């Protein structure tokens, strides 16, 4: 061990200062040429290939193209069973979030972007619609009912949406289900569908706090709870299990440098764990730290000496030095 450390120290001391020859070199010229080369390459690539720009999905599009998926997502937000409603921090307290051993970072950092899915996505946007006494009555009835009754209505509606016999139908923008005990939920969902299809829900969700907005959290998370974004992502090979983190839309090169990050999600135990994200973040944090600390890691710092790629890089120096001896 002390021999290894002594060699390490000697190697460092020997490499501190170059006492050999120098030759003429123009630093500014090299950087200028490099900028010129890169500028040329960038312009060439841009002219040849351009860049991708696939239009974003909107809630209006989603509700028009996939009205049943929209409604089943909306009813899940209403009864608190959606992915977002059961997410936990930073959106709500309905779950603890991901855990690693005793460490619950997701929970400890708290609810900083509170979203009440029933109010924010269904009841409040509907309550703002004027001139609809039937809708006002439906909202009051829903709000006044005990929790168990509300859940029963919503579950019945969700089950009817998922049924195959009889399958739900959409008739002139209206969802038609088999008769059932849906309470006011059917009115709520059909009204929300109409609002969404008119484009009003996109705007209502964005500007719920104030007129000027740059925070798309609410409409984005609602879209993400449905299947619209997922279906588009699947077609573009952007899903996690498709190594999607590395990919770009279309046939463009993507983020190749994320290869190791996405790799962990493809293998056990990460690919089947509820805590996959925190586990992968932990692994990658440790590896990143090791990457920064390479100069101090035995074996890793010695491999370049054992694998003689450096003999190719400095072959002229070694030849000159051998000649001079």
């Amino acid at each position, binding site marked *: 061990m002390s021999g290894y450390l002594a060699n390490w120290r000697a190697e460092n001391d020997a490499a501190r200062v170059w006492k050999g020859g120098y030759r003429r070199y123009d630093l500014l010229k090299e950087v200028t040429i490099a900028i010129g080369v890169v500028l040329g390459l960038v312009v060439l690539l841009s002219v040849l290939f351009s860049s991708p720009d696939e239009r974003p999905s909107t809630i209006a599009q989603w509700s028009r193209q996939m009205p049943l998926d929209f409604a089943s997502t909306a009813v899940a937000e209403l009864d608190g069973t959606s992915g977002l409603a059961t997410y936990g921090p930073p959106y709500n307290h309905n779950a603890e979030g991901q855990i690693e051993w005793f460490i619950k970072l997701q929970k400890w950092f708290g609810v900083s972007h509170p979203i009440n899915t029933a109010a924010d996505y269904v009841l409040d946007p509907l309550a703002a619609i004027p001139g609809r006494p039937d809708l006002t009555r439906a909202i009051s009835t829903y709000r006044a009912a005990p929790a168990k009754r509300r859940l029963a209505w919503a579950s019945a509606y969700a089950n009817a949406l998922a049924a195959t016999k009889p399958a739900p139908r959409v008739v002139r923008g209206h969802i038609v289900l088999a008769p059932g005990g849906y309470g006011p939920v059917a009115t709520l969902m059909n009204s929300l569908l109409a609002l969404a299809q008119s484009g009003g829900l996109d705007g209502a969700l964005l500007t719920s706090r104030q007129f000027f907005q740059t925070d798309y959290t609410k409409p984005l998370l609602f879209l993400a709870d449905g299947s619209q974004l997922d279906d588009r992502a699947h077609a573009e090979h952007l899903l996690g299990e498709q190594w999607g983190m590395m990919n770009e839309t279309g046939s463009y090169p*993507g983020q190749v440098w994320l290869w190791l990050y996405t790799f962990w999600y493809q293998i056990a135990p990460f690919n089947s764990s509820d805590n996959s994200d925190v586990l992968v973040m932990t692994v990658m944090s440790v590896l990143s730290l090791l990457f920064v600390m390479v100069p101090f890691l035995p074996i890793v710092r010695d491999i370049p000496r054992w694998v003689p790629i450096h003999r190719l890089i400095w072959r002229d120096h070694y030849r000159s030095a051998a000649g001079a001896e």
Partner: protein
Amino acid sequence: MLGVVVNLNHPAHFVHWGFFQMSISNLIAIIVMLVVFAAAILLPFPGHRRRGGAS
């Protein structure tokens, strides 16, 4: 779009090896990186035979 010679706005082709999959464009990027690295260390550097400066 200004001056698109090669339209890449179509679904990508992918290569599959077991559980691993990668788009052709990403694969090309990696291969080009390896080729350029190999070329950088193998190709002779101009003026390398001159012994410049004090030795």
